[in-house]
């Protein structure tokens, strides 16, 4: 097991802290690390794609789980996979697609580990149909505070605390997943343009049930009548028989190639102001008004940003903040107000996505609840951003919504219990399971989880 002292940040590259990083290659090594961690505790870390400080532990131990990356069994008949927590969704796709299976839920990047996917209870463009990741987990092995390994079945309180529990109940060692059957690695994509936010919400309400994947890119710089104009892309796995002859020869091929790395720093002037507005204009005008049945490769549709490694470096040294919230159905007015405020402020928001959520996950701290979610990236160096986001938090909390913890790096701790009503259960279970606070992260310290 290798050990080194490293400065770690989340994907947003804000608030670096230093920790001892252990890289266990077996359960025994992981258990020994947890048992031997000092008073500042330990936390598991996967591929570091959480935007905030969920997988950092200042002055303590961080268990880099990526060496535990064995896929143990695949039942090609039922699509049940047992794998270690450090296996990435990318690896699972490489292995499963040729067998005709696909991961049940994938976020906008496939470079996340299975353990991280459960710990953050990730959601993807298919949330309205499939729910979040942990809904497809049958059971998992959890290394708890004393160093013992427990098998946790779906439906138990410990499972519900662990799903979306940000690694604070223990270290997930392995999981049993149920996968989704596919017959090709191609997507049929329908694209529509929505002229404003109301138009978008209407289209999402009317048509979402017909598609497995649905999300809209929203132009947060458009103002006035065009506020909230968006490009809505919705897709479906293409059945093999519907593929054109050329694609039918290798229907399950999966060979996404990365482009050259993003530059270490994009000048601020390009991220905001006129260039960003122009880029958004081109992106909106460049999208077809209405197009159906376009064939796209799976990675191009689901993970467009994975083609650009290190894209999080673009905002420079001070990094970026991802802000994602959800407000329930019936709270459209709050959503409209927030979108209006962001666009009036002319924030250089990037990767802005709006999506309609379906039924929430079982996890107590799991983010998705039925309603509308908006996610956007903002450069952290923006003056006055802290207060602006605080005021958005207030609106979200007043509307009964919540902010996504896996992406958070700045939430005001006082708002947490209003946003997550099961927080008290989570805290009491943690106090019982881990009275000495063996599992801690910067996020748990910041929000007193």
């Amino acid at each position, binding site marked *: 097991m290798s050990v080194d002292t490293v400065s770690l940040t989340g994907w947003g590259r804000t608030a670096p802290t230093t920790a001892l990083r252990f890289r266990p290659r077996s359960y025994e090594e992981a258990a020994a690390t947890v048992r031997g961690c000092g008073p500042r505790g330990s936390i598991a870390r996967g591929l570091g794609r959480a935007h905030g400080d969920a997988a950092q532990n*200042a002055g303590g131990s961080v268990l880099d789980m990526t060496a535990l990356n064995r896929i143990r069994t695949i039942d090609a008949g039922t699509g049940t996979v047992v794998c270690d927590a450090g296996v990435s969704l990318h690896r699972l796709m490489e292995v499963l697609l040729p067998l005709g299976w696909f991961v049940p839920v994938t976020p906008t990047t496939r470079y996340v580990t299975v353990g991280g996917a459960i710990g953050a209870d990730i959601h993807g463009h298919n949330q309205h149909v499939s729910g979040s990741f942990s809904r497809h987990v049958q059971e998992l092995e959890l290394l708890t505070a004393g160093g013992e390994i427990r098998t946790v079945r779906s439906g138990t309180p410990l499972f519900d605390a662990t799903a979306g529990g940000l690694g604070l109940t223990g270290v997930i060692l392995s999981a049993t997943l149920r996968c989704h059957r596919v017959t090709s690695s191609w997507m049929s994509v329908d694209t529509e343009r929505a002229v404003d936010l109301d138009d978008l919400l209407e289209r999402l309400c009317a048509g979402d049930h017909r598609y497995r994947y649905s999300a809209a890119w929203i132009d947060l710089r458009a103002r006035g009548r065009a506020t909230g104009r968006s490009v809505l892309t919705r897709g479906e796995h293409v059945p093999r028989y519907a593929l054109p002859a050329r694609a039918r020869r290798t229907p399950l091929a999966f060979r996404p190639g990365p482009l050259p790395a993003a530059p270490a720093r994009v000048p601020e002037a390009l991220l905001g102001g006129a260039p960003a507005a122009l880029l958004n204009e081109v992106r909106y005008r460049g999208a077809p008004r209405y197009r159906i049945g376009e064939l796209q490769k799976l990675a191009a549709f689901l993970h467009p940003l994975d083609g650009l490694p290190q894209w999080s470096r673009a905002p420079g040294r001070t990094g970026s903040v991802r802000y994602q919230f959800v407000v329930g159905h019936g709270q459209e007015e709050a959503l409209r107000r927030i979108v209006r405020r962001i666009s009036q402020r002319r924030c250089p928001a990037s990767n802005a996505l709006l999506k309609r959520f379906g039924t929430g996950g079982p996890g107590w701290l799991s983010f998705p609840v039925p309603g509308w979610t908006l996610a956007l990236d903002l450069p952290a160096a923006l003056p006055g951003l802290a207060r602006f986001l605080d005021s958005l938090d207030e609106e979200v909390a007043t509307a009964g919504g919540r902010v996504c913890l896996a992406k958070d790096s700045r939430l005001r701790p006082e708002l947490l219990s209003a946003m997550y009503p099961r927080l008290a259960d989570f805290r009491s279970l943690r106090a019982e399971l881990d009275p000495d606070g063996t599992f801690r992260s910067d996020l748990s310290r910041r929000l007193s989880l």
Partner: protein
Amino acid sequence: MKDAFGAPQSLLVLGGTSEIALATARRLIALRTRTVRLAGRPSPALESAAAELHALGADVRTVDFDALDSASHETTLGKVFAEGDIDTVLFAFGIAGDQGRDEEEPLAAVRVAQTNYTGAVSAGLVCAGALQAQGHGSLVVLSSVAGERVRRADFIYGSSKAGLDAFTQGLGDALHGTGVHVMVVRPGVVRPEPAAETVWAAETVRAAGTVRAAGAVRAAAGFASAPLEASPLTTTPDAVAEAIVTGLRRRSETVWVPGSLRAVMSALRHVPRPLFRRLPI
């Protein structure tokens, strides 16, 4: 823990009556700070500063701290760090001394050097060790332009700040990569704003029932060097506080207040001594 914008949740101020430190604390409390420890020699001024910050909604406690008593620093500061993580430590203690008298009385001059430099060295190393152990945190040290190029008019104060500045830079390099961020703040001549001054006094009356404006002026004068009084390169405690908050957000290593001093001082630094001696500064 600090958030993505560098706003700390807990703050330790060494030199708890400093006007700059209090202006910074007020700003940080408006952001995320909930725990404030004001360290300084016990005095009514320290208590009323604590009461004022407490009224803003923070959990404030005072800590007995004497910069001259280096031997006690480890115990005093160790206790503060043992209670919980400290996200930001602000070094705001220092005395300006009286150049004329200090030249006559070497012991008074030594006192300036001991407070501003030796005291900061021992406290700095203790805090650096504690921050390194917790793996995160910021150490903000108030230096001064007076230390950048030492002038005839205040070379005793200036040399102590020069030592402090060099020490802090070295400490910052030593701690690079340990998760601890060290920031040197070099304000120009700090004088309290007349308008802000009255508001501040009125607030204090409401909060603590005592007027301590005179003390505030004295504390601010600790960073002043008189002959530059009227130049456009002077600044106010509020401006310095704002620059500190911005510096924390940007994780800056050196902050000049006002920013234009960076250019001015980089020119002054290279002026030959025979000429520098004759400059009317």
